[in-house]
């Protein structure tokens, strides 16, 4: 099996990410555990995803790189704050696990899931999509280079197919 969370963690280590803001998602469970266990990283659980946009801005002002982990529903919470990212040209890397796309079992996830890409693009965020487990690492690696090499806001959308949660029972069991 392709251990994509471990590889994503490697990308964050390689990029010298120091602050990890997150709202939990089942798809990010393992990556969050890896980040929390790393003494060189500061894991910052957030009460809402928009806090992470401010956190990332402050980290960069102080000379540190940060990453923001969330589920696609959380993207909607970030929209106005992303205006600051765009206006100030703050580098930003968001790793977004998708809901509301392939095989979704909760209808309430579908509207935001379907709006995730256009909402991000409307705010000037470059959106890259990893459709398979094999694509996650190279896509995230390129996104990290784009974010900090070109002072860009970049979101990597990790397909629901990669996460592979099929039902409420499956999600609760993880």
């Amino acid at each position, binding site marked *: 099996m392709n251990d994509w969370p471990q590889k994503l963690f490697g990308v964050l280590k390689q990029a010298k990410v120091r602050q990890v803001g997150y709202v939990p998602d089942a798809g990010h469970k393992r990556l969050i555990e890896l980040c929390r266990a790393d003494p060189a990283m500061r894991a910052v659980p957030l*009460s809402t995803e928009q*806090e992470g*946009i*401010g956190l990332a*801005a402050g980290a960069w002002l102080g*000379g*540190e790189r*940060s990453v923001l982990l969330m589920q696609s529903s959380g993207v909607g919470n970030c929209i106005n*704050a992303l205006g*600051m990212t765009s206006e100030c040209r703050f580098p930003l890397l968001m790793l977004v696990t998708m809901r509301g796309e392939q095989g979704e079992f909760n209808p309430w996830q579908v509207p935001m899931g379907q709006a995730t890409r256009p909402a991000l693009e409307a705010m000037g965020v470059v959106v890259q999509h990893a459709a398979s487990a094999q694509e996650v690492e190279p896509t995230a690696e390129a996104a990290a280079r784009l974010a900090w090499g070109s002072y860009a806001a970049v979101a990597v959308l990790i397909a629901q197919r990669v996460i592979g949660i099929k039902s409420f029972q499956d999600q609760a069991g993880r």
Partner: protein
Amino acid sequence: MSAILKRREIVAALLQERGELLVVAGLGSTAWDVSAAGDSPLSFPLWGAMGAAAMVGLGLALAQPARRVLVITGDGEMLMGLGSLATIGVQRPRNLAIAVIDNERYGETGMQATHTASGVDLAGVARACGLGASALVWTEAEFAAARKALLGQPGPVLMQIKVLAEKIPLVLPPRDGGLLKARFRRAVLGPQADAE
């Protein structure tokens, strides 16, 4: 009680010997207050992203643990980011302080009442979130103690400072976000800021 403190005097007193202090100003009146005390590359005034000031302060405080970070923001701005007090309470950065300049109004939109006008106690929320020394400030004597806590004592801490609901002249900082970011980073990080 009614407020007697004046916001411009309070913010000027917080910044009069600022030295290496790093300042984040919330959008609106507090950004103007910070500018009125003297524009500095070590101030990052927000012109948008309402509710984000405390979190910008948190990211900065975690990145620069040896330096004091002071967030100066308004009651309306803080109310929009109330959850960030819980997030800060979990992280507990000792170098982070928040001064809420509380005029109980949305000052930029017509002086409409905020929740603090109805008694919402931001300092109480902060204490409940783990910012233990947080307090409400009405008087000069209380402010003298709050100033010491904000600038020197171990944080995180929030001081909710009640001020008069005055309409006072605008003193605007630079508006260009890219400029504000770049000059702040240069002032904090030196020439390496541009090499990163």
